[in-house]
């Protein structure tokens, strides 16, 4: 009985398969026809136009998109992808921010030490804090770049005028989100940056106690535009609580709602603008 020779692959044949690229098809076939694969996935994905449409239309996240768009809207050179990246960074701050909220108390006595605790004792606390802060700063930059791109492509022109207006609200709320968050670490940097920023409210015409025409309204340091913002006449614990509520609840809700309108209007205005 001659023993059967083992099946040695023919090198030349193999090289030919690699060169022609047929090998990938064969490997894919091996995998997708294996028992593990077929028992896990009930059916394959046929790349038909109908399926491409269904991928978008029957997915709750993806159906934010239209199912078809103009070819020019794909070009990174046109959009710089900046609107999308801004949105992604916003989502990153939401996720990391919620995690930070588990450890942080917006109380004068605790806030700073909660930051220390977060940084040194909470597993991945420092990383969460870093990601939250850097994503927030990056978002400020990307939203400016997005706005710059929209201006340069003239995309605010009819019919997209109103979406530009919503955009200006969005850039304002992005800055306010960042600014209110700046106070929360309750360190020297936070307190004095916010002091400098909110001192401006003192000078509001009519409504700030150092502003022009304040004497006709009768506002005082304890009762003017700034004290409404801070809940007192200086950046103290009431201001911390106020900024916390604005930062974690009010502004994200408003900005989120505006983003929904923003995306909806992009579609209603006929998709991404283009030279047509």
């Amino acid at each position, binding site marked *: 009985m001659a023993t059967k020779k083992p099946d040695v692959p023919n090198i030349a044949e193999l090289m030919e398969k690699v060169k022609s690229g047929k090998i990938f098809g064969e490997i894919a076939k091996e995998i997708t026809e294996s028992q593990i694969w077929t028992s896990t996935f009930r059916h394959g994905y046929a790349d038909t136009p109908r399926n*491409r449409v269904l991928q*978008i239309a029957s997915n709750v996240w*993806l159906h934010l*998109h*239209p*199912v*078809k*768009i*103009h*070819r020019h809207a*794909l070009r990174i050179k046109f959009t710089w*992808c900046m609107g*999308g*990246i801004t949105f*992604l*960074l916003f989502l990153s701050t939401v996720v990391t921010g919620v995690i930070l909220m588990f450890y942080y108390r917006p109380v004068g006595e605790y806030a700073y030490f909660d*930051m220390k605790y977060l*940084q040194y004792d909470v597993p991945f606390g*420092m*990383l969460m804090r*870093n990601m939250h802060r*850097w994503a927030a700063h990056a978002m400020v930059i990307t939203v*400016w770049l997005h706005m*710059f791109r929209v*201006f*340069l492509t*003239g995309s*605010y*022109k*009819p019919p997209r*005028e109103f979406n*530009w207006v919503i955009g200006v609200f969005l850039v*304002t709320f992005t*800055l306010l989100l*960042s*600014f209110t968050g700046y106070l929360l*670490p*309750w*360190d*020297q940097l936070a*307190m*004095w*940056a916010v*002091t*400098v*920023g909110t*001192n*401006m*409210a*003192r*000078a*509001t*015409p009519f409504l*700030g106690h150092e502003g*022009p025409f304040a004497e006709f309204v009768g506002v005082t340091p304890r009762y003017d535009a700034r004290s409404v913002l801070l809940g007192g006449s200086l*950046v*103290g614990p009431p201001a911390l609580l106020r900024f916390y509520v604005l930062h974690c609840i009010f502004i994200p809700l408003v900005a989120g709602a505006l983003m929904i309108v923003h995306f909806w209007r992009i579609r209603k205005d006929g998709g991404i*603008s*283009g*030279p047509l």
Partner: protein
Amino acid sequence: MAAPAPAKKKVEGVADKVHVWPYLVRIEFLCAILTILALAVWSIMIDAPLEEAANPTKTPNPSKAPWYFLGLQDILVYFDPWFAGVVAPVLIIVGLMLIPYLDVNPKGNGYYTYTERKFAIWVYCFGFLVLWIALIIMGVFLRGPGWNLFMPWQYWDPHKVVALVNVDLPYAFGVREYTTAAWTGFAIVAAYFGLGTGAYFFMERKAIKSVGFLRMFIKIQLLLIMVGIVIKIVLRLGFNIKYIMVTPWINI
């Protein structure tokens, strides 16, 4: 021969649409991965700052607003807080919102072009890159104690004394009496806006009918304010002029 041509064009127009899945989704996916990767690497490498605990009795010098507001904080050198801190931001926000309604040039809608809308691009780039970004960079890196200017190689000396030799514009013109000076300043500011508006309407008189009076009026006021900020900066840095108009209520 000529008849089938338009039909073909129509078909091409339809064919120019592509499926979002996979063509857009894959780009978004790639962008998302790269962004998250960059954010993660950045966050692993560089820690967010945490200074000593807040202390209301210890004012740092310089006290700086968050970096994205340093352009406005820098304008404080040249304007009183009611303008730099309140009116200017409001004007920026309102002015930006008005852009689509003031810019009636139908060209350049949805594509990059410089030649078809030179003026609009210049105004936006000047406002954004110079008045906003450049001032922020200056505020972050060059403003030291006492909000004085320091070059990157200079020591931030908290005791640096800068002689305040600034005078008001009417004073520089030789007007010494308070009420006369106030009226002189007021006349200069009014003349600036009046003449600027007049000159603009004269130059663009043919466009008034099609563009509309109100639109042109608002546009030129916003432009004059923007240019006025630059003029004030130049007057201050070049000629040591503090205010142009001083009244008991507001100074400009």
